């Protein structure tokens, strides 16, 4: 079964990796998203993640299931952290293991792209100088405003 979690705790990459792997698997791919110290030319001191937790749990579980279907392997793990993160801390981790490597790369990439596109999570960047700002992101499904 694909595994997923929305958490407030630090993400341990080796624990995520440990959730995948099986005797028939010859390949594992781990992706980590990390808070970085710069964005569009501004120096970043940290990132604040907010989520619609109940929905994010469902969406992340669905993304992990879809990635598992693509991979042809149920060995998919995905975790997203919320709260205040410092530069260098892991905000998201995806691990996939499969018999052959192409499927593991493909499914890991699929999962992170979907996470960026539809997981109801938002981030507010904190800067060394100036007020924090919500980052613009992608609008998943649009409800028309003007009727």
């Amino acid at each position: 079964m694909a595994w997923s979690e929305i958490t407030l705790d630090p993400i341990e990459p080796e624990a995520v990796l440990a959730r995948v792997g099986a005797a028939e698997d010859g390949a594992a791919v781990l992706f980590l998203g990390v808070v970085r110290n710069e964005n569009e030319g501004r120096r970043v001191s940290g990132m604040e993640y907010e989520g619609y937790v109940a929905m994010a749990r469902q969406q992340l579980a669905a993304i992990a299931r879809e990635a598992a279907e693509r991979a042809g392997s149920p060995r998919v793990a995905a975790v997203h952290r919320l709260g205040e993160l410092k530069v260098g801390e892991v905000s998201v981790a995806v691990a996939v293991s499969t018999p052959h490597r192409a499927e593991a790369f493909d499914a890991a990439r699929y999962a992170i792209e979907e996470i960026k596109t539809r997981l109801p999570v938002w981030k507010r960047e904190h800067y060394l100088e100036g007020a924090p700002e919500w980052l613009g992101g992608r609008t998943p499904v649009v409800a028309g405003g003007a009727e």
Partner: protein
Amino acid sequence: MNVLFFASHRELAGAGDTVVALPERSTVNALLAALRERGGGLARLPEQVAVAVNRQYADGETVLADGDEVALIPPVAGG
């Protein structure tokens, strides 16, 4: 019906949620219009807003029922 706000929308609304009374069988678009009519920060909601009904993305024509959990979803930025 209860409507949830997050992130930049929460700041516009000045609250994490609000209660909206709508005629039966109103759509998501009607809900958005009702929210905008309240004025204040909500009048500045973007023209295009994503909405989740019962934790699933829903389009503007989706018909709402009493007891639905409705959430306005700002552009997502996970990862």
